[in-house]
């Protein structure tokens, strides 16, 4: 199995776990917020590790993953707190 396939399986596990726990915290907005933020942070870390292993990590890539995570968090805030 190629390394990138393994990485994507890890990503899928992170995301499915995130959705699963998020759904389980249906009556608790604060917990859903924590789970969403934790999933976003995990994604950023995954992205950094993935590009490090691929040998193409660049500061721009790190900033891109951070911004993608921030966009997701701000969308999460929009839905949960308004």
């Amino acid at each position: 199995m190629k390394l990138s396939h393994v990485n994507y399986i890890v990503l899928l596990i992170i995301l499915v776990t995130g959705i699963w726990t998020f759904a389980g915290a249906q009556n608790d907005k604060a917990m859903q917020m924590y789970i969403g933020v934790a999933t976003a942070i995990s994604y950023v870390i995954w992205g950094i590790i993935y590009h490090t292993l691929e040998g193409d990590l660049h500061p721009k890539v790190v900033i891109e993953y951070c911004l993608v995570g921030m966009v997701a968090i701000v969308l999460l805030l929009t839905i949960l707190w308004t």
Partner: protein
Amino acid sequence: MEHFLRHFFVPHHSNNHRAKALHLDSMLCYVLIFAIFNFGIRIVHREFPNVLGYATDIRVDQLLAGTNTQRQALGLTPLTYNVTLAQAAAAKAQDMFKYDYWAHNSPEGKTPWSFIQQAGYKYTVAGENLAKNFSTSQGVVDAWMASPTHRDNIVKPSYREIGFAIVNGVLNGEETTLVVQMFGAGETVIANQEPVKTVVPEKAAAVEINQSPSQLGEQTAKEVETQVVPPTEMVPVAGANPTPVLNELSTMFSSVFEKPMFNIPTLTRNVAFGFMGLLIVILIIDGLVISKKKIVRVAGHNLAHILFFTAFFIALSIVKRGVLL
């Protein structure tokens, strides 16, 4: 226009082979725009609640009809509306807003039963369901029926009477429509039964943010022994002669109806999901074009971003505003 669309959505030499919508500065703009959008909604809602607000239509008659429909479907006796229980529910709702808590027991240790007793209802069995931030009566009843512990209260055969309070206020800093449903049976109804237990739905999940684990532990008790009035101590039938004040209070909290020009949950969901959908489409187009042209560039993986936003799309689509306890 065509040039602008291509520049914004399709990788091209004009945008350094990355759709402008996916550039780092664009991403930063999205974060700022949504932050301003969120603050803007709060400010407009505070200043012009009739323009931007939370559409709500919850009424006692609808809640009563919905509850009794569920009971009758199971062959159970319909519950009778009781003004004293409604007064107890109103007092509970007021206490929750006053002391800013979302729980069956108050931070000072007041139980639902103390509100029922203070209202003058002498019960042999009693129960309480809570709900907040639902927009319709049917939504509240459906959610209660979907929750096993709340459903148990609604279809409990020993209950004979019911009272509701529907109140708007601010709870934990959040504008909240609170629904308190109290069940009971007066001592004259089941006077000769063995001592029974009152039922509070077990908490489905942790409650609001500001509560300590010890508080949570206190609330999760599913069944609580009640003070059963001895059959020898005959007291007036529960709610048979409510005072005018009680009537007035229970009427005050009998419905919440708000119909703003724009409903905040609908507006925010449309904007957020529309944006997420657009972003996913742009990522797909960008990825396909780059893959077809075999362009090498320094950027994150579009497939990973697509999976990430899709996961958030799925998770956020199951968020419900209404919460039970």
